[in-house]
């Protein structure tokens, strides 16, 4: 065998290999999510929900690359660049935090990539900054807070004390609550992001003469607040979005959360076949109950699978139309996108209950029906 034919053989094998790779993975998706550090529980839930849907779908020709952003915007940006340039992904997904989403999403969609958000829904990407290639499968950030405000009206609260961390999503939260709530405010507080001691705030709540408390303190901040609030002896009703009451943290709050009302677009008792199967298989696969984040990851994957079955990602217009059709069985029941590619959906009122040793939520009503976000009107999609 001559050198020339050896080289030719090598070339042929190389191209054959590439051909095989092309034929096998017809769509590559890059997941950038938080898997270490504080807040890793959310990313892990999204990833597990997403991968469960992938596993159930079998061989869809979708290849998933997962990377950990450590909740740091700079790392998320590096990962996105790497995924777009060297991994050549077609679709990005996975980001939990709004500040990371703002750093990654506009650049990715500008490069013609699709982005499916399984969690963060900053207002800047829902209104004027919307993009045809950006789809949010979870909610616009304000939605759950608006629902809490709507619930406060039906519960006849007249004088709420409201608090949230001093950062963009915290300000959106209070704005969202006030948009729907029609009573008066006995106090409005911004806490430090990552604050763990709420003694000073609780003392102010006690002195304020409020008849109810609305708070948005996601993750560990909510655990601290609820434990300290329960110990303070104040028994005003508390309402908040689901982020302080998700399945991942309820066990850490314990009895202090019992009976607290919170708002969510999903719960494990939403009555449809997809949801029942999701809750059961998730528990079997991972040995824990799914959270709303897991349901969002699961829905995101199923949306992607449905679109990939209809259209080739190479034909961006057809793929976009297939995503927009949202032709998949959601854990939330009916699912549709508005003109800004954010969901139009029911937001439910849940109450924390105890089932055996496990603290969990049950739906007690609907706060807002077929609710779309207020920013949709500014979107020129």
């Amino acid at each position: 065998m001559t050198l020339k034919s050896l080289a030719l053989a090598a070339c042929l094998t190389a191209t054959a290999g590439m051909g095989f790779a092309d034929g096998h993975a017809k769509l590559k998706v890059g997941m950038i999510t938080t898997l270490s550090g504080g807040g890793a529980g959310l990313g892990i839930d999204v990833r597990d929900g997403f991968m469960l849907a992938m596993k159930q779908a079998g061989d869809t020709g979708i290849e998933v690359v997962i990377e950990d952003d450590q909740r740091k915007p700079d790392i998320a940006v590096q990962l996105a660049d790497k995924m777009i340039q060297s991994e050549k992904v077609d679709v990005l997904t996975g980001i939990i935090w709004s500040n990371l989403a703002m750093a990654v999403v506009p650049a990715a969609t500008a490069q013609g990539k699709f982005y499916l958000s399984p969690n963060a829904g900053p207002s800047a990407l829902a209104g004027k900054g919307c993009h045809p290639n950006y789809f949010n499968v979870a909610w616009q950030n304000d939605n759950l807070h608006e629902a809490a405000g709507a619930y406060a009206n039906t519960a006849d609260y007249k004088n709420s004390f409201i608090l949230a961390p001093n950062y963009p999503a915290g300000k959106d939260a209070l704005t969202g609550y006030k948009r729907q709530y029609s009573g008066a405010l006995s106090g409005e507080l911004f806490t430090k992001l990552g604050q763990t001691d709420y003694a000073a705030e609780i003392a102010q709540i006690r002195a304020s003469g409020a008849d109810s408390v609305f708070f948005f303190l996601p993750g560990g901040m909510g655990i601290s607040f609820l434990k300290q609030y329960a110990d303070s002896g104040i028994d005003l009703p508390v309402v908040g979005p689901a982020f302080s009451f998700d399945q991942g943290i309820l066990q850490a709050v314990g009895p202090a959360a019992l009976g607290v009302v919170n708002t969510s677009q999903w719960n494990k008792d939403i009555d449809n076949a997809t949801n029942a199967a999701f809750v059961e298989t998730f528990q079997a696969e991972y040995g824990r109950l799914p959270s709303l984040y897991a349901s969002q990851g699961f829905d995101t994957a199923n949306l992607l699978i449905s679109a990939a079955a209809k259209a080739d990602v190479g034909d961006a217009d057809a793929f976009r139309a297939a995503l927009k059709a949202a032709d998949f069985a959601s854990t939330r029941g009916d699912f549709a996108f508005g003109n800004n590619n954010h969901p139009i959906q029911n937001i439910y009122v849940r109450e924390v209950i105890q089932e055996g040793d496990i603290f969990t939520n049950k739906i007690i009503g609907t706060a807002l029906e077929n609710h779309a976000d207020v920013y949709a009107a500014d979107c020129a999609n």
Partner: protein
Amino acid sequence: MSLILLAEQLLNGLQLGVMLFLMAAGLTLVFGVMGLINLAHGSLYMIGAFAAAAVAGVTGSFVLALAAALCAAAAAGALVEILIIRRLYHRDHLDQVLATFALILIFSEGTRWIFGSFPLFLNIPTYLSGPVTLPGGIQYPLYRLTLIAIGLAIAGGLFLLISRTRLGIQIRAGENDREMIAALGVDISKLYTIVFALGAALAGLAGALVGAIQSVQVGMGEPVLILAFVVIVIGGIGSIKGALIGAILVGLTDTMGGVLLPALFKTFMEPSTAASAGSALASMLIYILMACVLIIRPTGLFGAKA
């Protein structure tokens, strides 16, 4: 603003202060005696909280949980000192920062590996839960009062330890001249291990005590560590008295600033803007305090002359 609210906030500030003191005491001792910057001190706080949550989960006893926190943190501290820190005393501060920062990452991911990514449950025991009514009609949680008492008792104990015991004499001597006390026949490496383990145990105890009213999760130590560094810079590095005064100053400034500034801003601003601007400025207050102290006394309030 009512007097009752003000008094309650003073207690809150004091409570935050004494818990910060438990963290800062170990940090300042280690820095003063061994000249070591230990960034991994926050990890020891986390280890204490996790050990307490694990033991409380199995036994249901809060006292056993606290004992476990003390032991686990002291053991982790001694182990780290013997295996790693001992090799760093003669290196410069940058190497120490690098190595102890690596320890933070190792401890954090190790804890996640053992306990998972979701926060653990650790609650106040029933006999300490609920509020009590203090003179003047102040409703105040009993647990927080207990924290103040424990913190002050430990401060007193540490003061006696440093001023009245042989170990205390050795620690003070070690701060002044470590070559000389080694020459006098004191086993300096044993002394270092003891001091490090003592500091670690205090951090672990703080983690367990505070973990019961906060969230026991990976990475819980780092925000406290930053405050503890502010405390020892204000108090003067190496001084236990400075750590106590500094901690209470920081606790009061942080709490009262967070309450009074937004209230002050509300007198001339629209409520929503006042809340936001007030809390933004309040979160800077302790650093402003630190800067002011450093301008007036560059070595801190009770720091030895540089």
